[in-house]
């Protein structure tokens, strides 16, 4: 489904990704871990097309398409979804309108008819249950005045509505209490299907108790330093990152 080869990217003058390769097949859950500044968030931001990063080498193909050549909206229309670490507040645009616009944009791109507001509301009811959100949240401006937990649940709600083929979760667990974490993880697990895949970026092993990965990868200084199965996450929890991470000077 996703084939990343020797990917390099920078932000401004700073090199962040320095040759990442990763292969993700349908039905798989991959966890990407690593210390702060390792590039793990950058990787998913680059895959989603954040203009703050510049790709300087390598490739990423998604179901045969050259992902990196597409603008962000076309990546989303092709089935890529990024759950933001810091969801953006948009005063003046209601959550309902935003969700319906996104939903209909993706339907249109697939050559399907737009859904009218009433039918969409029916569709939303089940989705709201999944993340334990009240329908009242739909009439509020996007993420405005939402608590940290509500923002993350809103991200998972969007994911539930858009039903992506590839979900990228960027530190979705950060700042969540255990109850919110369970709700978010339950949402992600419920949305998991044999034909979609998930990449979970996280700093902590804790999330992986709830979203169980098939593969765990460790990033350091923009490179993949170790890959393994879920037991790797437990090892990291016990030993920290230091045993895997060489001092940056040694890499130069």
């Amino acid at each position, binding site marked *: 489904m996703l084939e990343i080869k020797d990917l390099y990217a920078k932000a401004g003058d700073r090199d962040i990704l320095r040759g990442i390769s990763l292969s993700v097949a349908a039905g798989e859950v991959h966890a990407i871990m690593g210390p702060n500044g390792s590039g793990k968030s950058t990787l998913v931001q680059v895959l*989603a*097309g*954040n*203009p*703050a990063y510049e790709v300087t080498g390598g490739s990423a193909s998604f179901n045969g398409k050259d992902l990196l050549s597409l*603008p*962000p*909206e076309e*990546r*989303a*229309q092709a089935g890529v*979804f*990024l759950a*933001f670490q810091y*969801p*953006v507040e*948009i*005063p*003046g*645009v*209601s959550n*309902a*309108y*935003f969700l319906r*616009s*996104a939903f209909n*944009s*993706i339907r249109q*791109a697939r050559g399907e008819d737009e859904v009218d*507001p009433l039918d969409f509301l029916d569709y939303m009811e089940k989705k709201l249950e999944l993340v334990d959100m009240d329908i009242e949240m739909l009439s509020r*401006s996007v993420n405005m005045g939402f608590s940290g937990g509500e923002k993350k649940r809103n991200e998972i709600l*969007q994911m539930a509505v*858009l039903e992506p083929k590839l979900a990228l979760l960027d530190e979705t667990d950060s700042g969540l209490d255990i109850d919110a974490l369970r709700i978010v993880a339950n949402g992600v697990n419920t949305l998991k299907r044999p034909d979609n895949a998930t990449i979970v970026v996280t700093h902590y092993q804790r999330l992986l108790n709830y979203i169980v990965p098939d593969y765990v990868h460790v990033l350091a200084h923009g490179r993949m330093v170790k890959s393994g199965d879920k037991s790797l996450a437990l090892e990291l929890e016990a030993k920290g990152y230091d045993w895997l991470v060489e001092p940056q000077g040694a890499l130069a």
Partner: protein
Amino acid sequence: MTAAYIEDFKSLSSNGASLEPKWLRDVRREGIERFAALGFPTPRNEDWHFTSVAPISEAVFNPLRSEAGRIARSTLDPFTFGQSDWPRLVFVNGRYHVGLSTLNMPGAKEGLRVRDLHTVLHEEPALAMNMLGKISPVGDRAFTALNAALMVDGAVVIIPAGFESAVPIHLVFLSDANAAKGVSHLRNLIFAGQHSKATVIESYVSLGDSHYFTNAVTEVSVEAGATLTHYKIQRESQRAFHVHTIDAKQERDSHYVSFSFATGAALSRTNIYTNLAGEGCGATLNGLYMADDEQHVDHQTNIVHAQPNCFSREIYKGILSGSAHGVFNGKVYVHPIAQKTDGKQTNNNLLLSEHARIDTKPQLEIYADDVRCTHGATVGRLDEMALFYMKSRGVSADKATRLLTYAFAADVLETIEVEAVRAELERATLERFTGASTAE
């Protein structure tokens, strides 16, 4: 061309105006003399520093004085907010149009009067004499002077004491192809009697893209305890010039609520001045201006706190794209005796292109010591992260831009209390940059 207007004055004096009462002839004479002395303002004039009126002063416009012929009522549909039952007075190319106006005013029994100035001048000159020029001084204002000299028509709205109007009174100033190369000097007089409550809407609209000049003055009296909501909607032709001064005078415990919506005209200048002349008054001046291509849109507001214990609130927002130039000059003046004044003024601007430009100048002049006044202005661009966020959900770049632009304006539009007006202006705002039609 100053000389052309002086010729126009002579022609008016010897024809239509020759039978007018002396006081009116005096008003006109003073107007033309002041105009001849002042000439058109130049950018050296502090009030016109960012707006050159050379396109107006260098062109010649013929006076529009003849009445328009038959026009289908459906012509007005785009401008009536879907409210056919609102009382309305319609002016076409500067002259009152009976056929398009709605004469059965609810409230007529209680003394509500909505008439055209031309008729009032002829039939009730004493009424006009008591109002005309009483609130809008000519002083050093060239356009008001010109208006005083050459006005022929406009609206007179008298809301009787204690009257509460259930529906807005709509004044429509429509220009069509016959306005080409013409000028109309409209004079509107609005009187809100003691403890009355009403909404008056002035719409300046156009059919087609004629090149013409609207020079309007609106004088507003808000008597003690009255609340007047006054919307001005400027959707003139993209080739038109538009200069409009609204002068309001507020007596004690009155409220004046103003909204200025400006999207039309090649060059427009709207002055909204209110004088809080009694204690316990409130003034709310909000507005939204949007311009693109080569449009120039200028607002100047002046809130004079002349008495203690008054408040004023002002939010103006601007959205500028293409090579448009916006100007906002907002003054709040607090007299030495106006203690406990509570004033807040904000001007936020969104620039959508490299070549769009805004000059914003909020000014506080405070001569009292026990007041609470704040002001601020911002100029920004669309939030890149918000754009990426929307696009990452599949929303097209175009639609994301449109939604965020609309969202920028949404809160100020929400202050419009008349729902039909708010809905129409929200639609117009959303449509402005890309041609979409619905949001919620």
